[in-house]
């Protein structure tokens, strides 16, 4: 078990270093002088251009040897200095991201958990009923093949424009300021429901298909067959199959994160929902490079934390991992 976690942690640490390095490297690899490109972005803000120029020269430190630039980058990064946003000048990138993070998590976490439970239930159900299976499976495949943003668009169009049930932009109405009252919470939830739903549906297909296949596989395995020869009730066979099938679905949580992130970013854009994804698109449209890099790092850190959590849960649930990593012949 320790070996399993140790290997995983090593991968995560290396991933983190790799990501930060990419973050540092990419602007330096691209053609042209990044500072000039950046400063040109400030032509609209003349009084700040000079300040910016000296700041950027310091930040990039292009006059210094490469290893020192890299080293400085890490120091600044560990101090929480991710640079200054251009598009929201003069807000530091970290502050921008910090205020956007709760909105993203508010949609991300509930949608992941809800669609995991719902998808697995649907998949397990489909594995047992042929009729249901033949109807559900194609639907799930097409949901899985739909671009994440398109599901959002459909929901926005139908519930927001045709039925006019829910607002389709922002996290709360323009006139309101965030505070704790029934009015605000109600308003917030009304804005929350469609982005949540579209992200929920995005992930549903993958879970359902995965679970269906796993349950069928487990039901055909030798231990299920042996249970049959012992004449036990079907409910026990299914219970075991379900439990064993759910284990890979937990590791699947980590693998699905890529899809979820992509879904999250585009969904926020469709609904102009002020999370990290929306900020990221604004940063791209405004060529706010510090902000783009900051978003990248934030996403990576989030993904790493999520991965590690999944590993811990998995180790707690699957005895095979706990015992098999003792000492294999390598």
């Amino acid at each position: 078990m320790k070996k399993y976690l140790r290997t995983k942690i090593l991968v995560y640490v290396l991933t983190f270093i790799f990501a930060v390095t990419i973050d540092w490297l990419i602007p330096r690899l691209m053609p042209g002088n990044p500072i000039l490109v950046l400063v040109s972005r400030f032509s609209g803000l003349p009084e700040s251009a000079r300040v910016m120029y000296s700041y950027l020269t310091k930040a990039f430190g292009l006059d210094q040897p490469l290893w020192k630039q890299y080293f400085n980058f890490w120091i600044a990064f560990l101090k929480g200095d991710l640079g200054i946003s251009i598009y929201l000048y003069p807000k530091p990138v970290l502050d921008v991201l910090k205020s956007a993070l709760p909105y993203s998590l508010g949609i991300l976490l509930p949608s992941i958990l809800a669609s995991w439970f719902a998808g697995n239930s649907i998949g397990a159900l489909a594995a047992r009923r042929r009729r249901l299976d033949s109807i559900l499976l194609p639907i799930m495949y097409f949901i899985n093949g739909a671009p994440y943003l398109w599901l959002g668009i459909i929901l926005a169009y139908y519930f927001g424009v045709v039925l006019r049930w829910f607002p389709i932009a922002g996290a709360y109405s323009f006139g309101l300021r965030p505070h704790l009252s029934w009015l605000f919470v109600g308003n917030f939830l009304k804005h929350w429901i469609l982005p949540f739903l579209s992200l929920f549906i995005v992930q549903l297909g993958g879970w359902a298909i995965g679970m269906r296949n796993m349950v069928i596989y487990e039901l055909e395995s030798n231990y299920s067959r042996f249970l049959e020869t012992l004449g036990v009730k079907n409910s026990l066979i299914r219970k075991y199959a379900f439990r064993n099938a759910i284990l890979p679905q937990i590791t699947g949580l980590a693998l699905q994160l890529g899809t979820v992130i992509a879904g999250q970013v585009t969904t926020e854009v469709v609904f102009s929902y002020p999370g990290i994804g929306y900020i990221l698109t604004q940063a791209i449209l405004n060529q706010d490079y510090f902000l783009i890099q900051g978003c990248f790092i934030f996403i990576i850190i989030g993904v790493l934390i999520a991965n590690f959590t999944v590993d811990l849960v998995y180790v707690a649930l699957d005895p095979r991992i706990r015992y098999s990593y003792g000492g294999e012949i390598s």
Partner: protein
Amino acid sequence: MLEVRNLKLYYRTLRGYVRAVDDVTFQVRDGELLGLAGESGCGKSTLGNGLVLLKPPMNFVGGEVQLDGEKLPIEDYERMRDYRFKKVSIIPQYAMDALNPTRKIGRYIEEILESRGINFESVRETLIERLRLVNLPERVLRMYPIELSGGMKQRMVMVISTLLNPSLLIADEVTSALDVSTQKAVCLMIRNFKELGIVKSIIFITHDISVLYQIADRIMIMYAGKIAEVGKTAQIIQNPLHPYTKMLLTSLPEVGVRYTERMLSGIPGQPPQLLEPPKGCRFKERCPLRDKVCDKDPPLVEIEEDHVAYCWKVKPNA
């Protein structure tokens, strides 16, 4: 006592039915270990599994099975459920991965028993006694299958299968993956189940006739879905009558036989396809005694008490 009459078990494939067990009649008496031997694809495993768990692609085509005077509804998956485990059990070929990998073994047994409406406490003592019988410590009940060696898992499955003292136990190729030393131990344990009265009778399926000589009371030889010969162990080994049995036994290398002293020879040819098996005797194409009469279904010839063969060329008391 198990009585099987005219049993036919076919596999359904896209190209038609594979007649894996085709019109088989035999019995296993109380207190008896019947050895079932034959080459791969002769239908011995199908027969063994069919008596416990008959499900697609295996199909019941005909015949009747009676256990202790009661009809065994092997063709009815649901009605058969009551008989499994309590009356008929199997130690499957895949015994080494027959346990649920994510349950501690004690809890697993508890849940199985509960599912059959049996209180765990009422069999706890039996269970512990049986563990001792197969040389497993009591603490395995607190372990996960992955903590056990392959051999230990197999013996655990042996204990579970026989826990409710079924009348009939089927052991399907349990020793084929084992080393000789372990093979001997496991064979003797299985025979012990019968001798201690835990099970009334056993069908021991194997491709190794010399193993049967060690433990079987009677031996039944199958070829291409049909019975070739049945008899007491000594009758089959010392006085084989069906040409197939004879050739099988003379092709058997054993410690004590060297090529310099006696060059053995195999059986030329291959077993027939069971999709469209040949008419008459199924061994005729490989048989040195073959003639026209073999195109008709071979008769059952009783040579002496308990010793029968399905062959035109075997004469009673010859």
